[in-house]
Structure formats: structure tokens, C-alpha cells
């Protein structure tokens, strides 16, 4: 039982990191119809940037804020220079964003090298909690809390704000939103930056747990895409539920049948799509 609970906490922490990554990916796809395969690069680059800041003597929190800002600005440049040119062409989007993954991966390799790097756990959470005879790393509990907090923030933003209302309408019919007088380019840029900032936040949070290493962007991207597909394209709620499913299957699969851990996730995805082809919270395009 203790073993199960301890790994449940690890699974939840991993699930929340996946959620932060997948929520942005899903919202960007839902609104902009852009499949941004470079989203994983934002995640890992944020970890590297925060690592550099923390190595220069900054504390974890300042490093995190600065890394998120740097990646958000970087995402804006990527959106304006490249992404905005491939709207409406899925092939171009895939070729462009896969190319970006390779370029950014090599850039990271050049700057930070090929070794495993990790961000130190912030001092305030560098301890363990003992409860009912079990030990829980405080930082993992903090990551879980952050994931839940951001799920609440996303819910509030989507359901209770005018911007959220415009984004929901945009997922339904962006052309009509434009015909009501809203500037589509600004909405697209805003959502792209927001999604990248979420991924960057997740990337820094994951630094003390998963670390950073070459090709990590592909691993996190594949799992995030499975989350997006299971949850339903364009739905952050779907991303939240699906990230927990994938997080648990991944963690417990690695423990009990490590050779088949990845296969379990794909089998799960296929099974869900057979029952609900649009994913758990996805909608059929009208």
C-alpha cells in the first residue's frame, strides 16, 4: 500500500507536468489549428535557461520567472517569424515545427552540452513530509498543487473572463470572431505566447524532478500529444484528465512492466479512440 501511495504521488507530479505542457499544446491547436511540434522545445529550453540563471546565483523563483519571460518572448518571435506563415497548411506546420525542434535541440546541445543537467530543488521545499509512516518529497507535492492551481486558473480564465469567452468562441469559429471586430492576429499571438509560457513554467518545475538532457523534448512531446489526443483537441479539461491517466499508466507501467510501459500508453490511447474518436472532451468539427 505504501509503495502504491508513494508512486501515486510521483505519478500525479508527472501528470501535472504533462498537463502544463499539453494544455498549451491543446489550446493552440484548438484555436489556431496549428500543431506545434516544437512545443516540447519550449518546455526543455525553459529548464535550461532557468538552470543557467540558477547557476549564476539567482534563486529558483527568480530563475523561473525570468525563464518563463525569456521563452514567452522567444515564442512570440517564433510565431511572428515562422508560425504565422503556415496557417492552413498542416504539412508545412509539421515540416516547420519538426525543423525547429532539430535546430533548437542542436542549439541546446551546443550551449549546455550533452550531459544530464538538473535544477536544484528550491530550499523552501527541500525536505520530506512524513505522514502515516510514509515519506513524501515536499517538492513533488508542490508540483501537484501547482498543476491543480493552474487547472483552476485556466477554468476561471476560460469560464469567467471576456478574453476566455473570445477564445472559446474562436475555437468554434475564428472567422466569425474576426467578423465581430476582434483582431485574429493579436488573439493568435496571445494564445501562442500563453501556451508557450505554460510549457515553460512546466519545464522549469520539472527541472528538479526530470532534469534536462538531449532529445528530452521528443519524449515529453510524444506523451503530451497522447494526452492531447486522449483528452480531445482544443480542450484543457481533457488535457487535465488525460494527463493524469497517462501519468499513472506511465509511472506504474515503468514499475511493473518497464519494457511495455510506452506500449501501454499507446494501447490506452487506441482503446479510448475506439470508444470516443474525438477524445474524452473533444468535439466533432461542424
Amino acid at each position, binding site marked *: 500500500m505504501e509503495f502504491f501511495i508513494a508512486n501515486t504521488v510521483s505519478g500525479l507530479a508527472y501528470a501535472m507536468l504533462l498537463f502544463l505542457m499539453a494544455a498549451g499544446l491543446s489550446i493552440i491547436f484548438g484555436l489556431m489549428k496549428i500543431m506545434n511540434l516544437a512545443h516540447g522545445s519550449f518546455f526543455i529550453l525553459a529548464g535550461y535557461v532557468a538552470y543557467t540563471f540558477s547557476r549564476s546565483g539567482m534563486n529558483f523563483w527568480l530563475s523561473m520567472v525570468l525563464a518563463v519571460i525569456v521563452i514567452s518572448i522567444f515564442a512570440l518571435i517564433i510565431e511572428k517569424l515562422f508560425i504565422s506563415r503556415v496557417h492552413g497548411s498542416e504539412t508545412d506546420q509539421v515540416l516547420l515545427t519538426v525543423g525547429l525542434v532539430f535546430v533548437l535541440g542542436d542549439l541546446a546541445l551546443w550551449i549546455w552540452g550533452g550531459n544530464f543537467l538538473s535544477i536544484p530543488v528550491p530550499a523552501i521545499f527541500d525536505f520530506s513530509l512524513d505522514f502515516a509512516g510514509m515519506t513524501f518529497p515536499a517538492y513533488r507535492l508542490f508540483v501537484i498543487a501547482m498543476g491543480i492551481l493552474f487547472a483552476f486558473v485556466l477554468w476561471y480564465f476560460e469560464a469567467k473572463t*471576456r478574453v476566455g*469567452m*473570445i477564445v*472559446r*468562441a474562436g*475555437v*468554434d*469559429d475564428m*472567422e*466569425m*470572431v*474576426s*467578423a*465581430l*471586430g*476582434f*483582431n*485574429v492576429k493579436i488573439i493568435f499571438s496571445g494564445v501562442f505566447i500563453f501556451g508557450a509560457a505554460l510549457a515553460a513554467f512546466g519545464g522549469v518545475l520539472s527541472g528538479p524532478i526530470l532534469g534536462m538532457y538531449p532529445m528530452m523534448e521528443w519524449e515529453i512531446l510524444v506523451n503530451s500529444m497522447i494526452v492531447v489526443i486522449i483528452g480531445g483537441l482544443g480542450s484543457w479539461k481533457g488535457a487535465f484528465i488525460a494527463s493524469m491517466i497517462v501519468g499513472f499508466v506511465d509511472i506504474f507501467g515503468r514499475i511493473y512492466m518497464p519494457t511495455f510501459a510506452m506500449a501501454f500508453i499507446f494501447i490506452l490511447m487506441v482503446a479510448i479512440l475506439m470508444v470516443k474518436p474525438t477524445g474524452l472532451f473533444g*468535439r466533432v468539427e*461542424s
Partner: protein
Amino acid sequence: MIELKEVHSYYGHSHILHGVNLKVNKGQCVALLGRNGAGKTTTIHSIAGLVVPKEGAIAFKDKELIGKTPNHISKAGVGLVPQGRRVFSSLTVKENLLIAERKSTSSEKQWTIEEIYQLFPILKEREENMGNELSGGQQQMLAIGRALLLNPDFLLMDEPSEGLAPVIIEQIKNIILDVKKTGLSMLIVEQNIDLACCVADEVIILNKGEVVWQGLPNELLHNEELLKVHLGV
């Protein structure tokens, strides 16, 4: 109010509008009729900026609209009730109206959500329902209400009676007449000739992307050959 001069529009390589000329004066309601594929919706889309004409000019309040994005055209004072309603299914009825609510400095009539609810009481009753939970007629009312809340100077309506039951069409007709009384200029694309001739001050017939006839509704209704040749009646 608005004038199209020699407008040529394309969908990809298909040449749809072949030099359309039309004019809608302030406070006037013009109906655009024609068979399927005549270019009626393309004309509406060309004005709203959803299709960018390759040639010609569209002057609205003495400003050129061609080249402007749909949001700029909307802010300039052009409202759109699109074909197929296109209400936002993820938004409630109230949110569908709130998203459009905008004050206008030039429009004489300033619509509010309460006035829209007075015009369409059913929308008030169903304000917490999602957009896709409404019937076709209710969605049409919502689409009209949403466009009116932009407080436009000029309203484009694309087939407001499409797919509706006769009793609902009668309601929509009365609503258009009520809106017309406020002095709002309108261009209405319709397949329903009776509705179009009832609400319009002037009728224009399009055929293969060209204006082939223009006149008063009564002249059209009494011209059997015109009805037969261009509208298949």
C-alpha cells in the same frame, strides 16, 4: 452608404463575381436574389472582408473596404448575419450576445441586450442554454441579435430564412421590418422571394456573378419571365 463598383472576386482559381455593381443608400433595404451559385454569398463575403476581391472598389461611408480585414470592416460599422447562423456553440445565448456588444459613435440606434431580449423574448428565456441547444429559428434570432449588438450602420444578412419553418419565417420577416424601421441600412441575400420582396425597397438579381436586373419588388413580382428565367419560379 455603400457602393460596389466592378467587383471581381474569386474562390481559389474560380472566378465568382464578374464586375458586380450595386449601391445601398442610407436607410435603404436592398434584397439580393439569384439561383444557387449566382454569387450572392460571395458578394456578402466580399463586403465583409471574408473574401478579398481582386479588382473593383467597395466604398463604405466614403472609405475603401477592399484590403481591410474582417475585424476592421466590422469596426467600420458593417454587421453580418451569416449564412447558416454560425452561432458559437461553446457559448451560452447570453455570452453569444455579450461577445458582440459594442457601442457605436455613428449608429443612430444603440441596441442593448435588454432591447434584443424584448425583440426576441425566447432568447431571454434560454439565455443560459448553449448556442447549439437552440432550434434553427432561435439560432437565427440569436445571429440577428448578435449582429445588431455591434450597433452597425449597415447590416448584411445572408439567407435569414434558410431552413426555417413558414411560421418562423413570418416571425423573422416581421423582425426584419422592425429593424428596418430603426433606419438601419441592409443588404439581404435571400432565396425566399416573397420575404425579400416584402422587406426590400429595391431588388437586385445576380446571375453567374453579374447583376442582371435591378428594380422595385412589385416590378419583379409582376414580371413572370424574369422570375422564370433568373429565379426558376
